[in-house]
């Protein structure tokens, strides 16, 4: 080795002889020389030779040829030499399995040595020799060592079981080592307990379903006792193991928390973080109104802050974890903003993480300080950090409305610095601010335009172009600005090209007279000279829109944009829960579940937070919880990924599903239909959300715009009905409740609830066709009762209906049966059976249904809302045990509480009434003049909803707690309760 020999020369003759000289043995023929030395009679010489061998091994040289000679040195009284030989053995045994057997005897003998240090050394090394053939020989010595009188040997033997299990799991099970290991949990020595726990936890991880780590209150108690006495590392093993336990009830949970909290003052950060993990997890089970819950929250903040004074690497681990904790329980650190301020000398990875947390903690109370800091950071050196700081200022503006103005002026100051990447980042975030607060800060546009030339990054260019297009009417030279971009159109990135296309179309729609040429130019560039399908398709659509119906084009392209969300980069809740269970580990550092970076069976299990215990009835054994979890695990199908609504609307097959009445539309419309069904839908299927020409908005945007296009393109001059579907829908829901009070009769206790009729489509909006209707569930079938009234002068015929994808997959199960043509001023009543097996896409509100009805005149769109009780199925009564377990299993964050006011029914009457709508009472409990009804509901898509209805005698206000794996449903369920009870 070059460095080693140099070193020796440098040290010269005068220096004392040290071990570094062994690194010099690199000459040719050295193996031969070593062999001779190893076989020397002199002990000292032997030892020297072994050291040389180890040194060569370290630097990656193959010295396996010396195996027999080294093993020969094993039989020695010299502990240092023995250790060196063992080190060699561990490295090479696997490549020389036959030779390794030579060592077995020595191990067996050493395991009987009177010196416990030697016994332990033997058992420790034995496990590291990964040769199948010899493992069998090691079982007896291991068994003895597991019961050794000396704790040092036992603690080493405990780990050895894990080693052996890694080599040959079956052998370990057959030999009964697992039971011995379990017994060690009750050992008198805390370190033996800790190592046994570590070994068992590891073995249990590769047997996810075994009951190996049988954690029960007794073992937990033992672990908690050992926790106070063992080394810092042992404390970590025990805490990590405790975190896998699920306490039976809130009382047990609290008592464990009480015994774990002292660990928060440990000097070892890993002990602290593991304790935080246990507390964060068990806290889930504590009722929020408990005093102790508040105390615990307060106790968590100081140790987390203290972690930030640790070494930078640990700070990084702590910050990544705090990032999770802040998302899960923002209240813990909300007053600690200052400690996350970045220090000038922090390593960059600490700086970036602190910045992330600062944004999460930003609120109206601290925004002034935060902004001052961010402005400071924006002048630092590291480009990534500066960019993130600038982006953070934008996020503050969006998050805290009161600060928006200050943020904008800060950003303008930063733009004045003319630092290229600062300017670009600022423009990108200002675009978002414009989106969030339209018509408020447009005065700054002039300043932005000055910096047009310095923008060289696609994202910034696209943002700037968006701004110019969006506010084209206020920028005098918008056409010149956009034209300047157009010159190098083909050199731009796709992002910029798409944006430029949209911006110019916007400009044209706003100032049609002067910009005709420009729009022609961009359309031809996009459609004729481009190979990019997205760009070409968008170009074609605009072209066709503009040439067919400029008014519709305006509605589509200049449609109002939905709001953008305040919080960004939030971790998805189920992942967050899983990561909380992994606090302190690599998973929490990567913010990824272990399965994403661990190979094999280990870590594939997904961990979950425990559910808050149901008060009083929490004596169920945990077994029940496990056995039924399968039932309640029904996939929450309400939230499929954002679908491609546009494609679907365009795909609407406007003919009835079963062709009893073939449509005979006029030839004109027929053409339009074909166009729709044919080329265009495939054209538009690709990227619906870019169509409207907006940058990175929320998925909702795609929906809004998409619908608009469907109307505009397909139907020519039809008035755009769809915005009503987005805007007016909630009002319908509100109105329903009021209407209901009218029908508050007494007799109707049984039978599913059906809302009153509402006008869905007004005649003036639909060329004389008025549609009103309601929904009902009869004998397990959902029906849509529709009245069609012809208020026009001519006869209507050829009715057909189609639904857009919706949250619960509702779809017509048959055709719309209007057999005879509908004369002027005639009304026909139709019941349309619905199925719930259609395509699914999440709607907002959840129970929104978008419907297209066609007749011989035109196609009309409307949207309506159905009561979610329609979806409650008849077999929704849950078994009591299953109910209890499921209730516990659903995380308490999913629980929602509602008040139902002014309801005068007794609990039994209420129960009957609800049963009529398939809300089943599973159990009833009476505590202090308060009746509690535990009820279950099953939706058509298999989602279970559990509810607790509290009715206090004499109090007209009921309290309803709803728990569901798909918490979005809860609100709608509570609405139904209200409607049904008051009906």
């Amino acid at each position, binding site marked *: *080795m070059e*460095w080693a020999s140099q*070193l020796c020369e440098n040290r010269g003759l005068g220096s004392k002889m040290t071990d*570094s000289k062994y690194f010099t043995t690199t000459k040719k023929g050295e193996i031969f020389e070593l062999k001779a030395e190893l076989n020397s009679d002199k002990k000292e010489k032997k030892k020297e030779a072994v050291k040389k061998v*180890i*040194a060569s091994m*370290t630097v*990656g040289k193959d010295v396996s040829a010396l195996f027999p000679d080294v093993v020969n040195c094993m039989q020695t009284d*010299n*502990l*240092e030499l023995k*250790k*060196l030989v063992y*080190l060699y053995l561990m490295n090479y045994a696997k490549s020389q399995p036959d030779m390794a057997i030579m060592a077995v005897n020595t191990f067996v003998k050493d395991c009987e040595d009177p*010196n416990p*240090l030697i016994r*332990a050394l033997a058992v*420790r090394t034995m496990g*590291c020799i990964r040769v199948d053939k010899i493992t069998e020989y090691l079982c007896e010595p291991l068994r003895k060592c597991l019961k050794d009188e*000396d*704790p*040092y040997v036992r603690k*080493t033997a405990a780990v050895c079981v894990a080693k052996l299990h890694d080599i040959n799991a079956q052998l370990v099970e057959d030999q009964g080592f697992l039971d011995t290991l379990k017994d060690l949990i009750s050992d008198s020595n805390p*370190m033996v307990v800790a190592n046994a726990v570590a070994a068992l936890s*590891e073995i249990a991880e590769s047997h996810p379903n075994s009951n190996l780590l049988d954690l029960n209150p007794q073992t937990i108690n033992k672990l908690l006792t050992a926790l106070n*006495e*063992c*080394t810092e*590392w042992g404390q970590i*093993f025990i805490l990590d193991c405790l975190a896998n336990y699920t306490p039976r009830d809130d009382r047990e949970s609290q008592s464990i928390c009480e015994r774990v909290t*002292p660990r928060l*003052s*440990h*000097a070892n950060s890993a002990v*602290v973080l*593991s304790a935080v993990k246990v507390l964060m997890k068990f806290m889930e089970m504590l009722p929020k109104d408990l005093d102790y819950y508040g105390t615990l929250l307060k106790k968590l903040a*100081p*140790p987390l*802050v*203290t972690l930030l*004074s640790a070494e930078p690497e640990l700070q990084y*681990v702590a910050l990544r974890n705090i990032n999770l904790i802040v998302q899960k329980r923002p209240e813990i650190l909300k007053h600690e903003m200052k*400690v996350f*301020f970045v220090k*000038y*000398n922090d390593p960059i990875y600490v700086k970036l993480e602190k910045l992330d947390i600062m944004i999460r903690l930003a609120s109206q109370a601290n925004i002034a300080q935060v902004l*001052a800091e961010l402005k400071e950071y924006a*002048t630092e*050196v590291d480009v990534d950090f500066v960019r993130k700081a600038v982006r953070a200022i934008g996020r503050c503006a969006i998050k805290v409305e009161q600060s928006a103005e200050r943020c904008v002026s800060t950003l303008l100051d930063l733009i004045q610095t*003319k630092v290229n990447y600062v300017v670009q980042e600022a423009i990108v975030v200002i675009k978002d601010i414009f989106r969030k607060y339209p018509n408020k800060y447009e005065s700054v546009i002039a300043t932005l335009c000055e910096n047009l030339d310095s923008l060289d990054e696609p994202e910034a260019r696209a943002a700037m172009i968006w701004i110019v297009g969006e506010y084209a009417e206020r920028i005098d030279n918008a056409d010149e600005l956009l034209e300047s971009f157009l010159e190098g159109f083909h050199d731009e990135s796709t992002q910029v090209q798409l944006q430029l296309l949209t911006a110019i179309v916007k400009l044209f729609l706003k100032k049609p007279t002067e910009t005709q040429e420009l729009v022609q130019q961009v359309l031809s560039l996009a459609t004729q000279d481009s190979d990019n399908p997205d760009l070409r398709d968008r170009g074609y659509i605009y072209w066709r829109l503009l040439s067919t119906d400029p008014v519709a084009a305006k509605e589509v392209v200049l449609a109002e944009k939905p709001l953008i969300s305040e919080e960004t980069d939030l971790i998805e809740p189920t992942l967050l829960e899983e990561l909380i269970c*992994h606090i302190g*580990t*690599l*998973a929490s*550092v*990567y913010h990824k579940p272990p399965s994403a*970076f*661990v*190979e094999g069976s280990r*870590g594939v299990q997904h961990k979950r937070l425990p559910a808050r215990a149901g008060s009083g009835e929490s004596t169920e054994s945990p077994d029940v919880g496990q056995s039924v979890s399968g039932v309640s695990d029904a996939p929450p199908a309400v939230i499929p990924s954002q679908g491609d609504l546009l494609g679907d609307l365009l795909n609407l097959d406007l003919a009835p599903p079963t062709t009893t009445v073939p449509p005979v539309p006029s030839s004109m419309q027929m053409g339009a239909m074909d166009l729709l069904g044919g080329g265009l839908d495939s054209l538009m299927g690709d990227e619906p959300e870019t169509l409207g020409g907006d940058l990175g908005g929320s998925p909702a945007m795609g929906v809004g715009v998409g619908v608009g296009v469907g109307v505009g393109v397909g139907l020519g001059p039809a008035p755009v009905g769809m915005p009503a579907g987005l805007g007016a829908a909630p009002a319908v829901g509100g109105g329903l409740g009021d209407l209901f009070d009218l029908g508050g009769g007494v007799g109707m206790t049984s039978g599913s609830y059906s809302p009153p009729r509402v006008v869905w489509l007004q005649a003036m909006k639909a060329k004389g066709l008025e549609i009103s209707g309601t929904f009902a569930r009869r004998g397990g079938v959902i029906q849509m009762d529709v009245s069609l009234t012809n208020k026009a002068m001519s006869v209507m015929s050829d009715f057909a209906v189609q639904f857009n994808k919706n949250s619960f997959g509702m779809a017509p199960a048959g055709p719309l049966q209007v057999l005879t043509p509908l004369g002027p001023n005639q009304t026909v009543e139709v019941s349309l059976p619905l199925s719930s097996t259609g395509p699914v896409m999440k709607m907002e509100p959840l129970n929104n249904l978008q419907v297209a009805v066609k007749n011989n005149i035109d196609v009309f769109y409307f949207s309506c809302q159905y009561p979610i009780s329609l979806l409650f199925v008849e077999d929704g009564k849950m078994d009591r045990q299953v109910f209890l377990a499921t209730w516990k299993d659903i995380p308490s964050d999913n629980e929602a509480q509602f008040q139902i006011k002014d309801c005068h029914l007794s609990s039994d009457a209420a129960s009957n009434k609800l049963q009529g709508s398939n809300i089943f009472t599973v159990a009833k409990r009476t505590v202090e003049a308060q009746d509690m009804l535990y009820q279950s509901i099953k939706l058509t898509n298999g989602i279970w909803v559990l509810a607790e209805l509290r009715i206090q005698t004499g109090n007209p206000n009921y309290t309803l707690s709803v728990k569901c794996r798909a918490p979005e449903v809860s609100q709608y369920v509570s609405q139904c309760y209200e409607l049904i009870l008051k009906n």
Partner: protein
Amino acid sequence: MIGGLFIYNHKGEVLISRVYRDDIGRNAVDAFRVNVIHARQQVRSPVTNIARTSFFHVKRSNIWLAAVTKQNVNAAMVFEFLYKMCDVMAAYFGKISEENIKNNFVLIYELLDEILDFGYPQNSETGALKTFITQQGIKGQHQTKEEQSQITSQVTGQIGWRREGIKYRRNELFLDVLESVNLLMSPQGQVLSAHVSGRVVMKSYLSGMPECKFGMNDKIVIDKQGKGGASDDAGKSELGGSGKQSIAIDDCTFHQCVRLSKFDSERSISFIPPDGEYELMRYRTTKDIILPFRVIPLVREVGRTKLEVKVVIKSNFKPSLLAQKIEVRIPTPLNTSGVQVICMKGKAKYKASENAIVWKIKRMAGMKESQISAEIELLPTNDKKKWARPPISMNFEVPFAPSGLKVRYLKVFESKLNYSDHDVIKWVRYIGRSGIYETRC
């Protein structure tokens, strides 16, 4: 758990390589060298994932220590272990340098075998380790049976940090309260953030297995005693000054010898100390901090090629006390061509290599003021980016605790041996140092 542990020199050559798990191959050694050490760029994260293998690293001077794993290990534990490893090595052979590591490679392997078993950290207290891992390596044969079992019971026992049978002729202990005061101040003199992180370091030379109790002017304890009427401890302070004033401690952490559950329930700090020097506790305070110095900066840009800087420092403590080793570091722009400095006290120098004017004052009493003014000539540049104006930082040492912490007592009980608390000679010292003490300008 930890799958392997490697130590590299600055060139990326392996000095120590110990593999604990089968899933870590020899190529892991090279992967880290190529992807991290040779990456030649600023380290963007102390945890690196290369091909589903995670590498944790820390650096000590130009030596890299890397722990490798393929599992979802406790990341905090791995770093704590790496630091501990450094401490243990330092305790055995001093500074962690390439030369020392090569000279002690056999010892290091022996240590790694002992303190990490199958990747699980084991007892790593140097006090205990030194009883049976010695550089001579021959002790094994000469130990008596009693000695051997004493070693094992110490290594695995509840008091793993102290061996039995320690004897001193003179029982003596030294307490150092070491605080570092951190400040970030705006140019206008507004405190943006300030905190003290303190450590109580103890050197104990006590016989037997003494039981110690440590008391300080912790607000919670004082308030409790105030309510409980005249308690025997209140008002009586054996060590270090009057404890009238109490301080609010935000958080504290303790050496593993301290009984945490007792602290949690009674807020009393009791322990059996390790022999020799160790850190008893760390704490953090943010309220009522005495900021020993105030820095008042004034920077004026005169045209594009000249800067005028004036900095005043004011000492803010009892005039009878003396601050030492005062150093003020005033950053200068990268395009500085020349600097003229005038200071009333101490010495000031422009250090081009560090881009700063360094002003040093040996001693300064409390309630004094001193000033420096400098003219900085700049080279004209066409660099558009403005100079970032790093903060002015300061270093100093003062003979008091800026947090206001006072030691009230440290009692020693040893029931088996015949010495009492009064026979122990106790020394207490307070040192306040600057942590990151910055004023923006």
